[in-house]
């Protein structure tokens, strides 16, 4: 049995920790069909999931995430897999823990339900909370070191997910997705950074920040907005810029070198854990790890 890593100590031990990159796009490269359920591969294609995580560990990622982003019963319901929520998440955690061993910390990924809470939509608060609890408990059983609520835009939903995650007793990280407006950063649901920080802290996170929706340049600015409103450690996972289509394939402008070149600015702006979201690959993580090593050497 793998020994759990203490997330808070782990995070505090270095100026910056490097996480992993995208999962979904890597699974598509491995043959997942667009529109199919990525999380179903925890049951039907565990070797492919393990291979992606292994590629990140070998690239030097100090933390990896489970393939359970869409693992809430509501999201799995779109593929008739709601009843297998616990199994999908537990297996997802086991696969990641087995690959990570003692080399990397494992974060249990928890994404949005994809539904709107009442009164805007049909999802009842109690059902969302129950669903997140099922997911979080299964991830904890599967051995993850901490839980990571991510890509949230609705603060109420994010807080429900964090509360559910906190009941496992594991440390909880949360990230939300923002866009830059002329009045500062807001999520599409209208949540400004300051309100996100207050709500997430109240719900019990031990670190928080932003992922997706922006490249590393915008993320520097976004981190500064976070730093102004909280003293908790900050987490950031930028996209590799904004995607374009070249010769029929989706292409991200930031290559590993140009992406990783932002690391010193991200750390200066307050990031304690830096990973990648859409369009990032083991190549991006490999250069990030090298840069982080150079920064640490300079500090000594």
């Amino acid at each position, binding site marked *: 049995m793998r020994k759990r890593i203490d997330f808070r100590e782990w995070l505090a031990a270095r100026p910056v920790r490097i996480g992993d990159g995208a999962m*979904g*796009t890597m699974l*598509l490269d491995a043959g997942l*069909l*667009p*529109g199919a359920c990525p999380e179903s591969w925890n049951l039907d294609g565990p070797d492919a999931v393990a291979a992606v995580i292994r590629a990140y560990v070998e690239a030097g990622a100090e933390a990896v995430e489970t393939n359970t982003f869409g693992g809430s019963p509501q999201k799995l319901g*779109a593929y008739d897999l709601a009843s297998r929520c616990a199994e999908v998440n537990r297996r997802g955690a086991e696969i990641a823990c087995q690959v990570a061993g003692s080399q990397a910390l494992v974060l249990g990924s928890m994404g949005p339900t*994809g539904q*709107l809470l009442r009164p*805007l939509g049909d999802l009842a608060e109690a059902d969302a909370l129950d669903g997140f609890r099922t997911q979080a408990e299964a991830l904890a059983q599967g051995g993850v070191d901490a839980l990571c609520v991510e890509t949230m*835009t609705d603060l109420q939903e994010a807080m429900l997910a964090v509360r559910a995650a906190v009941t496992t007793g594991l440390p909880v990280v949360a990230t939300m997705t923002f866009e830059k*407006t*002329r*009045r500062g950063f*807001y*999520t*599409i*649901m*209208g949540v400004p950074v300051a309100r996100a920080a207050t709500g997430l802290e109240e719900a019990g996170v031990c670190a928080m920040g932003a992922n997706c*929706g922006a490249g590393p340049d915008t993320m520097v600015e976004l981190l500064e907005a976070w730093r102004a409103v909280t003293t908790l450690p900050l987490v950031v996972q930028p996209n590799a810029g*904004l*995607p*374009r*289509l*070249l010769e*029929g*394939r*989706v292409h991200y402008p930031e290559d590993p070198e140009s992406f990783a070149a932002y690391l010193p600015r991200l750390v200066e702006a307050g990031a304690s854990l830096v990973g990648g979201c*859409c*369009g990032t690959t083991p190549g991006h993580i490999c250069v990030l790890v090298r840069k982080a090593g150079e920064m640490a050497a300079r500090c000594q």
Partner: protein
Amino acid sequence: MKQFEDIREALIEGRDEDVPSLVSQALDAGHPPATILSQGLIAAMEVVGERFRCHDYFLPDVLMSARAMHAGLDCLQPHLAEAEIRTRGTVIIGTVQGDLHDIGKNLVGIMLQGAGFEVIDLGHDVSPEAFVEAVRRHSAGIVGMSALLTTTMPAMARVIASLKAAGLDQVKTVIGGAPVSEAFAREIGADGYGYDAARAVDLVKGFVVP
């Protein structure tokens, strides 16, 4: 006109319980249903669209206003004579094949309806063939496509190719969604890129000659 002002205010504030009674009052006062539609409901949704564009309004505000607009429309519909339901045109919308995300697409549908278009929503995971079939069946001049996933963006190019192959070159195409950009729209030969729902509606308006 005070009565239209009240309808607009209730709709802009998303008071869906107030809009139907205000619409009924306006009907009782003898205002033509088509005028209530254009000067009340549609005018108000234009303000909502503008506020969304300026980030004064966010998704929850727009959804509440949309609900109020639908409540008003339900009340107005039986009174609109056949001749008065002339729309600005028919728009086919859908989230492209392989993509199950439809919050953004639904929002565009609501705003298009608010702007007076007839909207045929094909839902999510829509194949290129289904887009072509719907364009033919409804004699639509405009197609709106949405994608949230970078992995499903290429499906937009396939829809445009299928329309061309079917001889429907004159159909205008608008694309939108988080990973999509102006440059991407140009690359795949789309006629427009809706950065957000309000801009998508502006583009569609621009395609129809008043």
